[in-house]
């Protein structure tokens, strides 16, 4: 399937979901299932939590499909956003994580520390506009943006991790995002 075919298939899948046809969910998982699960696993660091996140996300996709508007962006971007938000909710739900043993929590935290390497940040294979634009950012802004987007760190977690005041982190994010968007446009 070409990228174009995939994009068309995903758009149609969301229309099917909105119309109550659950083959839409099958199509989405056929096209993107392993990649979606990969994103969830990268953020959550546990296979059980990642599967739970994807399952919840697919229910949300099903429920919200009627709100999807192709004029506002791609179906793929919309689906990944729902999954990422679901992962972040699991990660930030103290009650949800309190059922984990301290050892499991430690593993989870450790996993997240290694998701975004400090050196050799280039996660993106092959040339791309995003890669070039990320490369153009100053090191701190790039690192923070990757910690947030790729590993799901909150601003205060980033502040603790980078040993910087929250206000500094906030302005680095603003500055970095502004520069990134300028470059991408």
């Amino acid at each position, binding site marked *: 399937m070409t990228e174009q075919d995939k994009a068309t298939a995903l758009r149609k899948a969301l229309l099917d*979901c909105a119309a109550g046809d*659950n083959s839409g*969910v099958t199509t989405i998982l056929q096209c993107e299932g392993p990649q979606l699960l990969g*994103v969830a696993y990268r953020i959550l660091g546990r296979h059980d939590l990642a599967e739970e996140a994807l399952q919840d996300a697919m229910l949300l996709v099903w429920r919200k499909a009627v709100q999807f508007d192709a004029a*506002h962006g791609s179906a793929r971007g*919309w689906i990944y956003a729902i999954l990422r938000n679901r992962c972040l909710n699991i990660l930030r739900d103290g009650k949800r994580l309190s059922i984990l043993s301290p050892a499991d929590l430690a593993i989870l935290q450790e996993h997240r520390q290694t998701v975004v390497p400090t050196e050799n940040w280039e996660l993106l294979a092959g040339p791309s506009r995003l890669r070039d634009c990320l490369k153009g950012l100053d090191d701190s802004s790039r690192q923070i943006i*990757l910690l947030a*987007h790729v590993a799901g760190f909150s601003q205060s977690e980033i502040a603790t991790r980078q040993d910087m005041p929250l206000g500094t982190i906030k302005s680095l994010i603003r500055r970095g*995002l502004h520069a990134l968007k300028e470059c991408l446009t």
Partner: protein
Amino acid sequence: MTPLSDEIVALSDEYVLGLLGGTETLLIEEVITRDAELARRVGKLRDQMLPLDQSAQPQSLPAGFTEQIRKALPAQDHPVKPIPANLSTAPTRWRLGVLAASVIGLAIGIGAASLRPFPEPSVVAVLLDAQGVPQAVIDDYGNDTAFVRFVSDIKVPTDRTLQVWTLPSQEMGATSLGTLDDTAATRLRFTDLPTPNAQQLYEVTMEPLGGSPTGRPTGPIVGKGLAASQI
């Protein structure tokens, strides 16, 4: 473009990155739903950042995963119901402004406390209706003053009064913070309530004219929500 726009755009960028808290996320999603221009910006940045998601190592789905999800899907309640922007019930522009101001107020938070001309609220609660749509935002300052802003168009019949309540403790039960005849932003003053806690329940009900006859909520709930601590 309103003066709020730059701030709202910056917040929506942070939303795409996953940096906003739960309450801010809820409110910015409402603003995005109501503002097509913002929705396009959010969709564009999402698509531009998508290669990062594509960089994760794919993981095989467990056997039977798709089937399991398909079986768990509920029936669609509203098959194909688009939401036209020009519905007569669509919120007016100033409601969007209030909603936008609310999310900015929340997001500015502690970091910029010194820039704000008024004291920080102790807690902020976003009140949702049964469908999860934000209706009002309450800032409780913890000194027997609270501020209520409505972020949705609520029709108050002439023979009805809106009443704001909180539940300081199970022992005290629901306690009135004040009554309103319309949905203008209002400062509420009350006496002898304990300092509000995170997770304290707030709600607005539609009561008979003049307020609840029993001193407890009797009418339908306009919106309810739990406070998030701002301290």
